[in-house]
């Protein structure tokens, strides 16, 4: 009887946990402040010193708007691939996914799959054409043959929505993580992250951002490789051994039967509702192909061929990384969950569940301690911080391009502006975005921001992706169709999320039952956006629409061949 009620309680908490997780990225949650970790702080200072040195070097080479937004197009395909990987592998995917594997096995793998499968789509449909058509960002591409003012404004606004939500989630995650890893105060942590990202972007532009992302990718991949290697060494390089031992340990530490423990080898709560699972999958898959900060990276290489190479390299590293996090998660079951040093006994007495010191998202960090001692744990902590910096710098740069290149230079000033004033505006925009991110990061400290990453992917998938794809592939798309379809996708995605459980019930606490029973909007909002784009385009008989359809041929030739594409010959 008592056991049953306890089990019910555990199940209930687990369900509520998963329902938020199911709709957003694995989040970092609220963390307790830890004792100051000097190893980590020293390694982090070395990283910061080195990257600031690079920023100083990059500042000398960043003279024009072209340099600022695209590093002058001089990044090689391989470097860009590493930088894309560095931009995409966030702390949430390193700590969050390994923690999800740690606590429920297979469900963690499901998450990484979603983040992975968008990349082939980016390669097959987007990367090369995007590079051939645009100059600085995705708004250039969608407004290529459509009317500049409305289409660019829409693209800039939906890019900014994506950037803002992603940025807030990262800032709050950063504050919690630093509090946890370094023992620093939350507000100080947020301000440090904000100031550093501002320094990278304002002074070093895309060049400094790229190198911060490359260095971070190399650090993260080598740290994770070492951990996965040590785990595999511990189980005699046999997956079968690793799974068998993990199930045994899992059964012991969670106090469940071996049969129940073996359930970590298959789908669990994450996919309890098939519609939600599918919706989440679609948002992650097509959202990746609509993320402005990722798409912007394709303009840093010299041509479509290098853009293609970037995606192949990035996909390789990202896939490798997700394989590592899977091993790391199981390693944490083997070497962390049964080690009293890492367990929060007081909390376990209250919740009746397995609790790690500092929360279950610390699984990978504790594992680094168990495998490599204090010094290695310091390294992994510093890597986690560096990871956040690299991601927020990329986000800020892309937000700044939406404000200065799209809204200021092309919409507000109608292209009648000097490169110098656009560059000045982009630096002001960076400053503004950094302050915005710091203030909201502090305001949202106690909020559950897990839904925000999900929201960012959903908006990218429902507003950016349909308009981007149709503008490149469908002759019939007109300004009217693009604007209505984009607005419908954006509004539907945001409204559905606000009315869903994660926001309506868990964050806003308006009522106990959500108005929208589904967690992810993508399955409904993306087709609706495509439909609106199509319907309002085919019924558009204006002279403007005729001109836009006629302009498709020239755009098509350029997108397929790169004739006239902006690049090294641009200046």
């Amino acid at each position, binding site marked *: 009887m008592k056991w049953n009620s306890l089990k019910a309680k555990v199940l209930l908490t687990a369900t509520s946990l998963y329902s938020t997780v199911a709709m957003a990225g694995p989040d970092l949650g609220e963390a307790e402040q830890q004792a100051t970790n000097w190893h980590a702080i020293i390694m982090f200072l070395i990283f910061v010193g080195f990257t600031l040195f690079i920023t100083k070097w990059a500042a000398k080479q960043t003279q024009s708007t072209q340099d600022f937004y695209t590093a002058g197009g001089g990044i090689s395909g391989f470097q860009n691939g590493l930088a894309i990987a560095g931009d995409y592998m966030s702390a949430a995917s390193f700590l969050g996914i390994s923690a999800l594997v740690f606590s429920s096995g297979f469900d963690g*793998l499901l998450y990484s799959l979603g983040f992975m499968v968008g990349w082939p789509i980016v390669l097959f449909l987007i990367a090369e054409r995007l590079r051939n058509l645009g100059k600085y960002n995705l708004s250039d591409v969608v407004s290529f043959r459509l009317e500049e003012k409305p289409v660019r404004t829409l693209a800039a606004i939906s890019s900014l929505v994506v950037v803002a939500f992603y940025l807030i989630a990262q800032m709050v995650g950063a504050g919690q993580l630093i509090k946890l890893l370094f023992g620093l105060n939350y507000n100080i942590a947020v301000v440090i992250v904000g100031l550093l990202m501002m320094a990278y972007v304002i002074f070093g532009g895309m060049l400094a951002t790229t190198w911060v992302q490359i260095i971070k990718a190399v650090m993260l991949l080598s740290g994770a490789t070492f951990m996965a290697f040590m785990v595999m060494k511990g189980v005699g390089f046999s997956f079968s051994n690793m799974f068998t031992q993990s199930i045994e340990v899992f059964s012991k530490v969670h106090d469940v039967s071996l049969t129940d423990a073996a359930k970590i080898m298959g789908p669990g709560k994450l996919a309890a509702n098939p519609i939600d699972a599918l919706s989440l999958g679609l948002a992650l898959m097509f959202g990746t192909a609509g993320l402005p900060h990722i798409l912007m990276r394709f303009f840093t290489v010299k041509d479509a061929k290098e853009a*293609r190479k970037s995606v192949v390299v990035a996909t390789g590293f990202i896939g490798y990384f997700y394989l590592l996090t899977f091993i790391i998660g199981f390693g944490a079951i083997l070497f962390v969950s049964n080690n009293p040093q890492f367990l929060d006994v007081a909390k376990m007495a209250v919740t009746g569940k397995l609790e790690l010191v500092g929360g279950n998202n610390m699984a990978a960090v504790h594992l680094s301690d168990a495998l490599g001692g204090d010094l290695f744990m310091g390294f992994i902590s510093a890597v986690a911080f560096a990871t956040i910096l690299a991601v927020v710098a990329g986000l800020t740069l892309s937000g700044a391009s939406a404000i200065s290149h799209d809204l200021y230079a092309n919409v507000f000033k109608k292209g009648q502006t000097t490169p110098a004033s656009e560059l000045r505006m982009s630096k002001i925009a960076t400053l503004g975005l950094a302050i915005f991110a710091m203030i909201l990061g502090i305001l949202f400290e106690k909020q559950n921001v897990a839904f925000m990453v999900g929201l960012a992917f959903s908006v990218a998938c429902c507003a950016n992706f349909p308009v981007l794809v149709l503008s490149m592939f469908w002759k019939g798309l007109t300004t009217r169709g693009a604007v209505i379809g984009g607005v419908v996708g954006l509004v539907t995605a945001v409204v559905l999320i606000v009315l869903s459980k994660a926001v309506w019930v868990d964050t806003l606490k308006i009522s106990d039952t959500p108005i929208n029973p589904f967690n992810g909007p993508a399955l409904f909002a993306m087709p609706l956006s495509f439909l609106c784009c199509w319907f309002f385009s085919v019924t558009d008989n204006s002279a403007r629409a005729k001109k836009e359809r006629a302009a498709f041929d020239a755009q098509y030739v350029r997108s397929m061949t790169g004739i006239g594409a902006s690049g090294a010959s641009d200046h």
Partner: protein
Amino acid sequence: MDQNQVEQILRNPKFQKMVKKKSTLSWTLTVIMLVLYVGFMLLVGYNKEFLMSSFSGGVTTWGIPLGLGIIVLSFLLCGVYSFIANHTLDQLSEEALKEVEAITHDKGLH
């Protein structure tokens, strides 16, 4: 690039061949990826028993090799695309552009 040039490129047989090959390749691979992933997610949603069943008699379930397999396959599909694009499509497109350039150049002389 003026309208005349655009039309010439569009009419060029090599360009047409390249475009046709490229779209077939892009969309085929996209559909393969979608079918694999959506198919897997449908299994996750509607046939958990299969994914929980043993893969080779041991504790490893079908879900694990299939899940990891999709990660590896995503990368392999990227490799296939890139290989074909580098070895066939780029060359075709270059030849097409050269031909078109030669024609416009000739016309300029007359």
